[in-house]
């Protein structure tokens, strides 16, 4: 048996406060949804962006997994909220991992969160391009 990993104060704070936890209906035309991972693999991140005039007006997450996965999703949602889509797409997994001071074997959780951001913006773009076309 293993007990919990010792995380940084920032990971602990994010898991306590769950900043930006939640979501919106996927069918909402202003919303893009990204889902990365699977329950079977032990990490599942669902991140949503609400986009207004090519700016991520708001972002929400739901995450199943370890504290690193939850904190990464929460921070990623924080970092893209209020930024233009093009800037949000440049979000760097290493920067998320560094900001949370994730242990080496947990840095992949930051990559999950960043991949979910990119998927979410891509989802919104696909659906809106299709709607415009």
């Amino acid at each position, binding site marked *: *048996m*293993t*007990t*919990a*990993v010792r*995380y940084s104060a920032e*990971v*602990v704070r994010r*898991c*306590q406060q*769950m900043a930006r*936890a*939640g979501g919106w209906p996927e069918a909402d035309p202003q919303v893009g949804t990204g*889902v990365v991972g699977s*329950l*079977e*693999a*032990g*990490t*599942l*991140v*669902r991140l949503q962006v609400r986009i207004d005039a090519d700016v991520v007006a708001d972002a929400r*997450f*739901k*995450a*199943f*997994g*370890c*504290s690193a*996965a*939850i904190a990464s999703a929460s921070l990623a949602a924080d970092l893209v909220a209020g930024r233009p889509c093009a800037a949000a797409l440049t979000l760097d997994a290493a920067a998320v991992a560094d900001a949370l001071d994730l242990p080496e*074997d*947990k*840095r*992949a*959780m930051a990559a999950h969160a960043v991949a979910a951001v990119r998927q979410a913006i891509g989802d919104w773009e696909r659906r809106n391009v299709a709607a415009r076309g």
Partner: protein
Amino acid sequence: MTVSRPVYLDFHATTPVDPRVLQAMLPYFNHVFGNASSRQHRFGWKAEEAVERGRQQVAALIGARAKEIVFTSGATEANNLAIRGAVAARRARGNHVVTVATEHHAVLDTCKALEQDGCRVTVLPVARDGLVDPDRFAAALTEQTVLASVMTANNEIGVIQPIAALAQACRARGVWLHTDAVQAVGRVPVDVETLGADLVSITAHKMYGPKGVGALYVRRASKVELTPLFTGGGQERGIRPGTLNVPGIVGFGAAAEVCGQELATEGPRVAALRDRLLAALQAGLESVTVNGSLVARLPHNLHVSFAGVDGEALMSGLADDVAASSGSACASGSREPSHVVKALGLGAAEQWGAVRFGLGRTTTAAEVDFAAERVVALVQRLRAASPVEVGRA
């Protein structure tokens, strides 16, 4: 009633040294410091007397004779000595070993290592209740089987295997039976005659004794002779050479005596607290499932799954309030549920949401109530932020 945080509910991992045990040990660090193998002077004689008293106390707890107890550095060594020692000693008979998927790594990994050296190893599955099927076990034994190793009580899910039935099957085929009994001894009555195993591993630190000392019971009547792991000074009749850990053995003996005296009252007391914890968790939350049999189970064990929540996230979030244990481990970014939980065949949500609570001698009702309240609140918070739909229980 106030509780001291974090509440310790990880008594399967280890236990604090009982103050009575510590008192018994203290003189043997300085005043009575002799080497138990020093036969030529009083210092050695006193140390030897203490070791033999400890041996008798440990033997008495499990209904053994003192001569059947071999002291080791702990249960991992006892398991290695039993398995490797038996396989090496019985080469003329065969090279087949039978074990079970939910064994401790000290057994499973030892068997794997032997497999790499040419042994044939059969790893039997368990049913959903965590128990091995005695008929399937008996069918796995062959003329080439030299040893079977099945733990008495599981260190994660706390289920108690039908060792006496397995021992009968072994005896009928001339197979030695080893059982890792570290979680059971001192918690439930364990009598080696009733159990019927030929080799029994135990350790002090799981029963309010010190870390770094364990023992292997070696049944004399079965003429079990083990090949030692080490060469050296011939201590422990040559089965386990090495200077004896006199303070540790004194503490082991004292711990065994206290456990024997309190077994009849402590078992029902912690079982009632365990049931109280489960009731509080199930009253406060949906989809809380108990893993493994609740009937054939250690009184101080509760192993539950909180569907939709990751056990590790739960443990991290509880760090200031409750010390328990989740089975999942992370290695280089990929995650794995515990091998015990996987062997039960649970769904993914239950596998990841598994948590072990281990109650002990110092656990109080106030601690249990506090722990339940904090666990319920955190599971609710984690579920609210989880993308996994939790089914109605």
